[in-house]
């Protein structure tokens, strides 16, 4: 695979440069190559060739990043699990993917029912970064996102998919990382956005700066920008929403690029943020996990490129080899300036949800274009295309919300809340907005007040922390709209959280 060979070349070429700064400690590309080789040796000597999906506990350390590259050199996929997520959810992920081996850099691994490769204690070996011949349709990773039925939904991504992403970014003349760049890597490795924040710095020989677990990330990011003089930022918009009260104290002339993704970027805050970064190009990226992170972007500029709809910055145009199509409910293309569901086609499209034919039948379709069968993924995002060919984001077509950049199906929260409660009452999860404009989760319960702690404790054993409702309200009778549906808009007014 071309990009894996490029990774090898970049690592070998930048031996004396730094690859990672974790909690104030720097590691060089040579350190990285050593770790990769040790882990690779452990993989080849203990995992059989046919075993392709390997669990990875995503700690914030050199070994975890090295494990991803070691697996790729061997043509295997990583199945990441977050050590702060409930073990029950993580073992569910391994069960769904039939994962038998888990790479774990923790001091002691809690995955004793699996074959654990403990990467902290491996013996030194010769450096070996030559990739094995791998077919492009093999998987590079599988990520799990919130699903409506209480089960997380697996999104497999192939080496070809990742190559498509690399080709598209390489083709973009306005974005070029250099080995001297200092890049923010704020994402947990179970979150698909992390793929661009480690892959592109590695391909350029640049250095990544991570956020230690337990740090207050907003202030830690500012500390990195200020003290380490970061040059490349990639983040979700909620970061700047939280930093907004302090913008007047931020001036970061070293930042060259700032890319946003994973949520709606609002025009007013983008402008104010842009004032903090006087020498920076801002990119508003769009793309779902199912399409290998990014599918396109809009090059925002506070004076010359501020196209927006209801204050939400445009998502611009598709990147190289990607096709955008806006459709109606019959998957027929709609006219310019008509809102419909955005669908994506091209080399970055996932082969389909992991073992989920029912969902695949709903989310993918093919269409003949100039004699060619093009497969499209339906994003669930409502958009329209304007006269200039730019795409503008309107909203979601379903009950999915974004909490701190993570996709959350409200139905999954309701499922787990109801599963534990012996009171058979109506429960509705909604997104409520705090005064900084960020979504938080609320749980409305149609009942007189009762003890809810046990239900919340149970939910914490089933779902990651960002999916646990921060606010609970008891409402004797839910408001309904005229057609009998629960009126979520009015429910929201019960959550006065500011």
């Amino acid at each position, binding site marked *: 695979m071309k990009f894996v060979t490029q990774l090898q070349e970049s690592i070998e070429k930048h031996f004396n440069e730094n690859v990672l700064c974790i909690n104030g400690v720097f590691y060089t590309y040579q350190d990285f190559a050593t770790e990769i080789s040790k882990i690779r040796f452990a993989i080849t000597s203990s995992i059989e060739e046919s075993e392709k999906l390997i669990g990875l506990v995503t700690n914030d350390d050199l070994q975890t990043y090295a494990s991803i590259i070691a697996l790729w050199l061997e043509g295997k996929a990583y199945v990441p699990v977050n050590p702060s997520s409930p073990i029950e959810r993580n073992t569910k992920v391994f069960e769904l993917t039939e994962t038998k081996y888990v790479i774990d850099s923790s001091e002691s691994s809690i995955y004793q029912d699996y074959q654990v490769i403990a990467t902290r204690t491996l013996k030194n070996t010769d450096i070996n970064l030559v990739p094995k011949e791998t077919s492009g349709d093999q998987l590079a990773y599988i990520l799990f996102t919130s699903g409506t039925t209480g089960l997380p939904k697996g999104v497999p991504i192939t080496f070809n998919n990742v190559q498509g992403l690399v080709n598209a970014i390489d083709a973009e003349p306005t974005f070029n990382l250099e080995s001297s760049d200092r890049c923010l890597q704020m994402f947990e490795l179970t979150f698909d956005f992390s793929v661009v924040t480690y892959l592109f710095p590695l391909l350029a020989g640049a250095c990544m700066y991570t956020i230690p677990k*337990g*740090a*207050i*990330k*907003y*202030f*830690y990011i*500012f*500390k990195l920008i*200020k003290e380490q003089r970061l040059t490349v930022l990639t983040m979700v918009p909620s970061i700047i929403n*939280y930093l907004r*009260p*302090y913008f007047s*104290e*931020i001036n970061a002339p070293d930042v060259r690029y700032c890319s946003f993704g994973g949520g709606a970027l609002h025009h007013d805050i983008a402008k104010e943020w842009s004032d903090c970064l006087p020498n920076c190009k801002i990119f508003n990226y769009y793309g779902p996990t199912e399409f290998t992170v990014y599918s396109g972007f809009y090059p925002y500029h506070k004076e010359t490129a501020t196209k927006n709809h209801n204050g939400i910055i445009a998502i611009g145009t598709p990147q190289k080899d990607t096709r955008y199509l806006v459709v109606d409910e019959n998957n027929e293309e709609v006219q310019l300036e008509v809102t419909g569901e955005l669908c994506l086609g091209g080399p970055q499209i996932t082969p389909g949800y992991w073992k989920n034919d029912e969902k695949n039948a709903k989310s993918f379709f093919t269409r003949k274009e100039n004699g060619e069968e093009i497969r499209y993924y339906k994003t669930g995002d409502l958009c329209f295309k304007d006269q200039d060919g730019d795409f503008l984001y309107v909203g979601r077509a379903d009950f999915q919300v974004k909490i*701190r950049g993570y996709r959350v199906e409200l139905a999954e929260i309701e499922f787990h809340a109801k599963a534990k409660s012996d009171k058979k009452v109506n429960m509705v999860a909604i997104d409520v907005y*705090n*005064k*900084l404009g*960020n979504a*938080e989760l609320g749980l409305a319960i149609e009942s007189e007040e009762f003890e809810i702690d046990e239900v919340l404790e149970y939910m914490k054993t089933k779902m990651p*922390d960002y999916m646990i409702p*921060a*606010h*609970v309200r008891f409402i004797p009778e839910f408001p309904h709209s005229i057609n009998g549906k629960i009126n979520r808009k009015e429910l929201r007014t019960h959550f006065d959280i500011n």
Partner: protein
Amino acid sequence: MNREEILSKVTEAFVSVLEHSNFELSDETTANDVDGWESVTHMMIISEVEKKFNIKFKLMDLMNMNNVGDLLKTIESEL
């Protein structure tokens, strides 16, 4: 305002943001010791504390705040 009064007002801010009171704050308390105190709720707590004391923190102070003791010290310096 003495330290005790400050602490009691700070505790009120924590309770109102975290929506529970299963904690006792001391100088050494960090986010790891209190259920629900993490990046997002921290920002809400800070904004609640600013409101209660009618002060405005500096980003430089917030950046180096590691425990409740640091928070109390910063409030004292702002009052």
